[in-house]
């Protein structure tokens, strides 16, 4: 089961080929300084490690959800949020 967040933390989830490139399905992070939107978080994650840089190399192929609702890149995020990154969906 998912670990509880401590105050000030953010849960980040990765699915499909984003999960493969990052090399993990989940990160729990202290809310980084200077990050206030999904787009900020993508840039911060991409600058942190090569796997994430590869995952976010084509931002037009990355979709996002904040607290399990689809959300555009300009969506504001705050500690306690669950932010998920994934490719365009292909179910059905």
């Amino acid at each position, binding site marked *: 089961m998912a670990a509880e967040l401590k105050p000030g933390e953010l849960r980040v989830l990765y699915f499909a080929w984003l999960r493969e490139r990052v090399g993990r399905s989940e990160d729990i992070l202290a809310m980084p300084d200077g990050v206030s939107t999904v787009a900020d978080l993508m840039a911060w994650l991409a600058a942190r490690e090569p796997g994430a840089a590869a995952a976010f190399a084509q931002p037009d192929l990355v979709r996002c959800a904040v607290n399990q*609702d689809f959300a555009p890149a300009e969506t504001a995020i705050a500690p306690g949020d669950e932010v998920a990154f994934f490719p365009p969906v292909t179910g*059905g």
Partner: protein
Amino acid sequence: MARISVQSGIFDIAAELAALTAGRTDIGGIGSFLGIVRDDHQHLVALTLEHYPGMTERAIAAIAAEAEQRWSLLGCTIIHRTGRMTPGEPIVLVLASSAHRQAALDATAFLIDWLKTRAPFWKREEFAGQGAQWVAAREADEAAAQRWQG
């Protein structure tokens, strides 16, 4: 109230139809869509469906609620499988019941169109001797979903 299930196991279509009609005589028709794992070129070994537990059920419930707003449905069933499946296996079932056929058929088409473009599932295909790859989203699917806008 829709019946929604995200499950790895196979589903029983006859049992699902029986559950929709049990104890009622006001249903005039049930629209149905059964999605099947397709192999276009005889190379597909298996399809694996990944999803986002929690958000998946929430997204499907929102899609079903939208259908119930747009058409007068008497019932609705959406079952989507996840995990590894081989060609020929059923993958998704959509049923919509109504007093009249047009609502049942239209709602069924709407539900599968939106399910393909607005629920967090991802398909990964395994090919004989060629490894595996994630399926890219198709513009035709988005176009099909867009026709219900507005």
